[in-house]
């Protein structure tokens, strides 16, 4: 069965690029454009991995992550933060909240993101 990936990203072009990449790699991709819809989609579709941006309209990525980890139904779903924030404070905060990894968009290629997903899915 195809693995389900949920991408929460507000930038249209980045979202399209990443969706395209993930489709090429044979993933079942769903995307959300803000924190609130992202969070409800995690609950709804129970993806295998979430790719989460941090600066989002409405509730931000940190809050999405925090809420997801508090909800026992979805707390086990691995969340990879994919953001252009990347100061140590941000990374540490993400890890404390339970992110599986923290990737700075400008420092990784789509293929490297896919490789990370593969590693996490085992």
């Amino acid at each position, binding site marked *: 069965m195809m693995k389900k990936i949920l991408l929460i990203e507000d*930038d249209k*072009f*980045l979202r399209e*690029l*990443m969706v*395209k*990449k993930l489709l*090429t790699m044979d993933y079942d991709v769903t995307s959300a454009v803000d924190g609130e819809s992202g969070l409800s989609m995690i609950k709804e579709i129970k993806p295998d991995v979430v790719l989460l941006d941090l*600066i989002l309209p409405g509730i931000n990525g940190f809050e999405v992550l925090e809420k997801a980890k508090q909800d026992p139904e979805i707390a086990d779903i691995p969340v990879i933060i994919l953001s*252009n*924030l990347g*100061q*140590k*404070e941000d990374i540490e905060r993400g890890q404390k909240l339970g992110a599986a990894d923290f990737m*700075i*968009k*400008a*420092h990784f*290629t*789509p*293929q490297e993101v896919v490789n990370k997903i593969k590693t996490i899915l085992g």
Partner: protein
Amino acid sequence: MEELLTKSEDLRKVRAALLNVLEDTDELRRSAVDERNKTMAIIENLTDGIILLNKKKQIEIINSPATELFNIGKKEAIGKCFIDLLDIENIPEIKKILIDKDRIRNIYREEVATLDGLHLEITSVLLKDEIEEKGFLIIIHDVTKEKLVEKMKTEFVSVAAHQLRTPLSAIKWTIRMILDGDVGEINEEQRELLEQTYISNERMIRLINDLLDVSRIEEGRLLYDQEDTRIEDVLDSVIEASQEMLRNKNMVLEVNKKETPKVKIDKEKIGVVIQNLLENAIKYTEQGGKIKITLDNDEKNVIFKIEDSGVGIPKSQQDRIFTKFFRAENVTRMETNGTGLGLYTTKNIVQAHKGQIWFESEENKGTTFYFTIPINNK
């Protein structure tokens, strides 16, 4: 009779002379009062707060900006002991300056933030002539506005850098996906062009990272978590990561290290320091050159030394080498990509660890950089 007349004449002369003296004295007194009034008017009308204390630290002069700042009447203040009188809980630092004997030895300056959000630069000067101490002059300069502008500037750089990363990521991802064949075949010429574009874009991303580092230096938030670490371990991982660069330029790297004591450092930042110095050595040395790294310590410091046989730093430009955005003339001509931020960042990181950094260099012979990290910098 004759004698009497002479004496009386003398007396008249003396009287006239005395009157003259008196007149002169009076004039001098008046001009002294004038001078004093002028001086007081100047002090009073300065925009900085001025407080003059005598030897016993009693207030002799206090001007309006200072009385306003401390919310106190002038008459009330004069003659009273500074510390007892003023409610300076709001600015505890002033109290410290006045109590701490070491600080007021000569001249002392410190910036303090008050509880109501003002930033004050407080200067305390010990007034003395050859014989004795006369008292203290305290100058309080409001730098709130400057601080705000500085903060806005730094925040602007930080926000702009983050904002710039998004389109740069889009460019990076797009080019990479085309190069990876995710959207179909491309020919060799297209590949070459795109690869060059990708490299340019990577340079831009790196520049943004450097700018972010600089903005953090200016915010004073450079170091994150510091832990006891052997610099040797940091050095090993930097060397490991630089193998490809070394191989590409066919360089020999000699490393002499002894087991140095653990020091309290931000590992990542010291890694940046070593990496910057090693990368510079590689970049600015011709193919097949030699680099030597020595790690040693004395009683007080761990000492890092990196020696190259490279192009060197022109003598006339050596004093500007740690300046932000500065690049020496001989390297700008070498078509190497540098931002001029590396050594600026490096110096600030070393200094944030209370260490020192310096170099020796001769053009076309090579450069040796040194930095130290104090062993007891806890």
